[in-house]
């Protein structure tokens, strides 16, 4: 049974990146200069599209093409974690989309002109759904670092892009997962736009022996938290 959700809590700004960030050059002409209008949450914001694997088939192993021919080059890894809201409620049956560069640091995209080899066996996109407890998991290749011309000698740390939907469109989020110990993290203007250190570090996955499979691949855990519901006197927590 669905319960009535009145809205979602507003984030602490220190835990989210600003729209204007001079260190990240592309924000200069793209950030709004007028103040944002605070939108009250209505059914448009508290409802969300429903995605099912029947209509949006899973692509849970990025290391093999659908025709089964060939294997992607690079270090195979298993990535998994849990999608919840700020109250720890699992986000069930949610679609998780991921995309990334290949092991050499090149995207399978016409706009990427970095002089690194494309891998004909790696498209760099995946789609999985969370289970009853909010867990997701996929198999991929550890992405390489790549240069991006934001400043002299600028290199993006290894990362995987994530696109997420919750139960309300106000929970919509795109983020990036990073890797532990990456020496580029302290130098990266995008990662460092999040001023709160703990919030920033929550974007870094952790090595996970439970997810690691013997003779197959290392596992990395990345939990993701969507906005929590605004408390209301009407709220009934026993049905979700």
């Amino acid at each position: 049974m669905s319960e009535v959700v009145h809205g979602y809590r507003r984030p602490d700004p220190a835990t989210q990146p600003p729209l204007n960030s001079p260190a990240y050059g592309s924000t200069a002409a793209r950030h709004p200069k007028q103040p944002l209008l605070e939108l009250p949450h209505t059914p448009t914001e508290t409802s969300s599209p429903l995605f099912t694997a029947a209509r949006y088939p899973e692509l849970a192993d990025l290391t093999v093409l659908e025709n089964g021919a060939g294997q992607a080059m690079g270090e195979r890894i298993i990535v998994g974690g849990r999608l919840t809201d700020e109250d720890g409620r699992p986000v069930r049956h949610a679609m998780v989309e991921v995309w990334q560069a290949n092991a050499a640091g090149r995207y399978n995209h016409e706009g990427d002109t970095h002089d690194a080899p494309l891998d004909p066996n790696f498209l760099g996109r995946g789609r999985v759904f969370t289970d009853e407890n909010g867990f997701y998991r996929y198999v991929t290749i550890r992405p390489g670092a790549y240069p991006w011309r934001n400043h002299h000698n600028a290199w993006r740390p290894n990362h995987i892009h994530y696109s997420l939907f919750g139960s309300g469109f106000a929970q919509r989020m795109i983020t990036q997962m990073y890797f532990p110990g990456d020496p580029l993290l302290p130098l990266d203007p995008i990662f460092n736009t999040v001023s709160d250190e703990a919030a920033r570090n929550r974007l870094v996955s952790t090595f996970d022996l439970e997810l690691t499979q013997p003779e197959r691949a290392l596992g990395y855990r990345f939990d993701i938290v969507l906005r929590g519901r605004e408390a209301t006197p009407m709220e009934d927590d026993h049905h979700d």
Partner: protein
Amino acid sequence: MTDATTSRASNATPELAPSEATMERLVASAHQTAGPYWHLVDFPEWADTTRHFADNLPEGGQRITVTGVVRDGTGAPVTDALVEIWHADPAGRYPDGNGDPTAFQGYGRCATDKEGRFRFVTLKPGPVPVGPHAGANAMQAPHMAVALFARGLLQHLSTRLYFEGEALNETDPVLRAVPEARRGTMIAKPAGNGAWTLDLRLQGEGETVWMAV
């Protein structure tokens, strides 16, 4: 998602039913830019929300197109943007979350082209209740949520698209919260035969009213 590792991981952490006693307090993850290569998860057919229905559209469904050009602060077209829409069905209803996969869903995704243009095919939404706190008779004018992702946007930008000529535009609480001089940045104009247009301006002259959702 069915192999042994996933099962073990799931079993290792039994679900905690949230209650006031056990409620965890987590902090929402930080957004990060979609970057310029999000097209790897773009599927052009997603720009047509009617694609699952053929001619069997929901009752009262009026097929429309919504197009526009996205421009940055210099007036240059934004050619790498991901535009998403989310809106109610022609009767003003949203899916109830209980998972009827055959119900109409007003969700679309579209990449801007070399001219910065997006184009959706969808059904014109009906008026939507303001919400459970506002009484059954308080209605919002027909509208769409619009989310815009791109390189240079560390969080996505959000606005709403309304339709010129709707009587409810005069009383819509969101439109009324916007200074009159800027409301036009949220109101699509008709171009005939069910075509509607609204340009989006990230910054500068005619800047769209962007919202903290």
